[in-house]
């Protein structure tokens, strides 16, 4: 990955903005599926209305997927805007709302935006420029950031998403993006005619459509500076539910698309992204088991010691002897990995134009693997026992 980054380092420069005076600009529909989003829907639509793009070429299609709160009333207040179309349907899941909007669309490009996300005003111009640069590109994924990381859970996600922007950019260079995220991915409309609409896909339709595009050799790229802000879960419970859905969805989709693994025709998606992701998940589980085992061993030894000699807390000794420094193959590799992780973070900060504080980074590195292990283990459990996940 780092080799690829070095090879394509020039592509990290800012994406040029498409000329809005250009009469050949493609028309765009943004579909906003929503279910019980009364708190965020208006701000989401407002951010779309503020997009720097010719108004006659941008439509917004809001699809209420049978909300039970006041989302529909909030949506109705927007219907007088000529750019906006509103629809209400029976609840059928996010993918059905997306498909409803897509089938109504007649524009060149169709995008989707989750109703808890907001776009930066220049995002669409940058993404359209990418489509114009390469006519083979069928979808563009944006750079997703966390909206107002105002507590520890969100701050950790902020670090994670910043890394995500960096990783996604490299995957884009390799032609190996495996998710077109719900917040503001844009597609050429014709791609749906060629490969079909969104599917339920174990509640991860944005991953499934990306894998289906790879199966049909459709190109997906990333626009690293088209920023979209999403409201991250603010509690561990909500985060766990969201990530369980994502991880379980990834595992099930990986099985459904197992033909992509190590398939020369599909390139790096099968040789790098998918195996790398599976190995990472298994690695976290193994690391968790090992940590619990070593922790239990140390605790047991301490309890045994206390039981025979009593508890005698001592101040740490400062007599440093290099002989006892824990330097071995494992610690050297770990240190090198940490250096690479920090270097990547610095690179990610530059690309994502973010600002990560040391406290959040430390928390992310030290605790996040253990937090993540909870939903990863549960995902494997659900996979084995065929238990599906819920959206919320």
């Amino acid at each position, binding site marked *: 990955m780092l*080799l690829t980054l070095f090879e394509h380092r020039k592509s990290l420069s800012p994406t040029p903005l498409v000329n809005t005076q250009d009469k050949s600009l493609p028309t765009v529909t943004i579909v906003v599926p929503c279910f019980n989003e009364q708190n965020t829907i208006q701000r989401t639509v407002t951010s779309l209305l503020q997009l720097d793009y010719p108004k006659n070429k941008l439509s917004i299609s809001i699809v209420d997927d049978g909300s039970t709160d006041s989302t529909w009333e909030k949506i109705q207040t927007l219907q007088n805007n000529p750019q906006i179309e509103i629809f209400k349907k029976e609840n059928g899941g996010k993918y059905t709302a997306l498909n409803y909007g897509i089938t109504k669309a007649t524009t060149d490009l169709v995008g989707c935006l989750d109703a808890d996300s907001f776009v930066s005003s220049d995002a669409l111009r940058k993404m359209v420029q990418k489509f114009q640069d390469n006519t083979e590109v069928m979808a563009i994924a944006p750079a997703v950031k966390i909206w107002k990381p105002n507590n520890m859970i969100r701050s950790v996600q902020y670090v994670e998403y910043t890394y995500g922007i960096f990783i996604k950019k490299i995957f884009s260079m390799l032609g190996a993006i495996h998710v077109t995220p719900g917040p503001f991915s844009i597609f050429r409309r014709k791609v749906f005619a060629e490969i079909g609409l969104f599917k339920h896909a174990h509640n991860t339709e944005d991953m499934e459509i990306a894998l289906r595009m790879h199966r049909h050799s459709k190109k997906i790229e990333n626009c690293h500076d088209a920023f979209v802000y999403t409201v991250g879960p603010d509690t561990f419970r909500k985060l766990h539910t969201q990530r369980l859905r994502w991880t379980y969805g990834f595992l099930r989709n990986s099985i459904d698309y197992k033909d992509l693994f190590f398939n*020369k025709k599909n390139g790096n998606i099968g040789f790098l992204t998918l195996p790398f992701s599976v190995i990472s998940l298994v690695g976290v589980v193994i690391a968790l088991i090992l940590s619990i085992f070593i922790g239990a061993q140390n605790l047991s030894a301490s309890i045994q010691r206390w039981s025979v000699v009593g508890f005698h807390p001592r101040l740490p000794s400062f007599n440093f002897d290099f*002989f006892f420094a824990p330097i071995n193959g494992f610690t050297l590799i770990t240190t090198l990995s940490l250096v690479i992780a920090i270097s990547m973070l610095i690179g990610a900060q530059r690309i994502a134009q973010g600002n990560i504080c040391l406290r959040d980074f430390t928390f992310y590195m030290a605790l996040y693997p253990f937090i993540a292990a909870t939903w990863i283990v549960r995902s494997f459990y659900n996979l084995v026992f065929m238990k599906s996940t819920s959206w919320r």
Partner: protein
Amino acid sequence: MKKNDIIKYILAFVITGTIFITAFLLSDRLSANRMENIRSVEDRISIDILSSETQFALLRDSSCKQFSDSILSQELNTLAQKLDFMERDLGTENDEVLHLKRYYSLLQIKDYILMHQLSERCSIKPTSIIYFYSNKEECPDCVKQAYVLSYLREKYPRLRVYAFDYDLNLSAIDTLIKLNKVERRFPALVLPDNVLYGFTSIENVEKHVPNIKDLSNTNASSSASSTISTK
């Protein structure tokens, strides 16, 4: 897959392999340096003991006041800690570790003999503990016993504790076992007046070692193994 990608995968594999090999070579070199360090400590101890024996012979006819614990080796404790570290790092069956451990055991025996000669010369009762454990057998009580002995060494800095692996296959240790009539039961503690088997608590050890309370003075030597091998 493009040709460029294949070249990149090969290059990434070579770079990663080089990093791993370099890390493990460095680690190996470091272990070798540590072993060298232990060897040099053992040599220093050997010279210390030889020097003490010579000093003892020279002062044979002198007053007992001219002797002190300080003629006993000062570095056995450091050596014990380093060997314990290497045992954990490379394993108890590592040939190099076993070799250094045999040498260390011999140095302990020489220190023990010297201490006894000193005690006889000055008509004082020797206060040492010989501890036998086994690395070949499962011995959960040996772990507990090691905690007790390490604690006692901290509490009584002048108490000399000698720890021996029963199965180290060293004739000097076998002789020590025969002399003290130590059975093959672990942990075994050879105390001044008797041999105790199985886990022995702090209180029991204190009860069986006469004048142990006098050994809490830290002014004298701090040697022998304060970190007792846990196996």
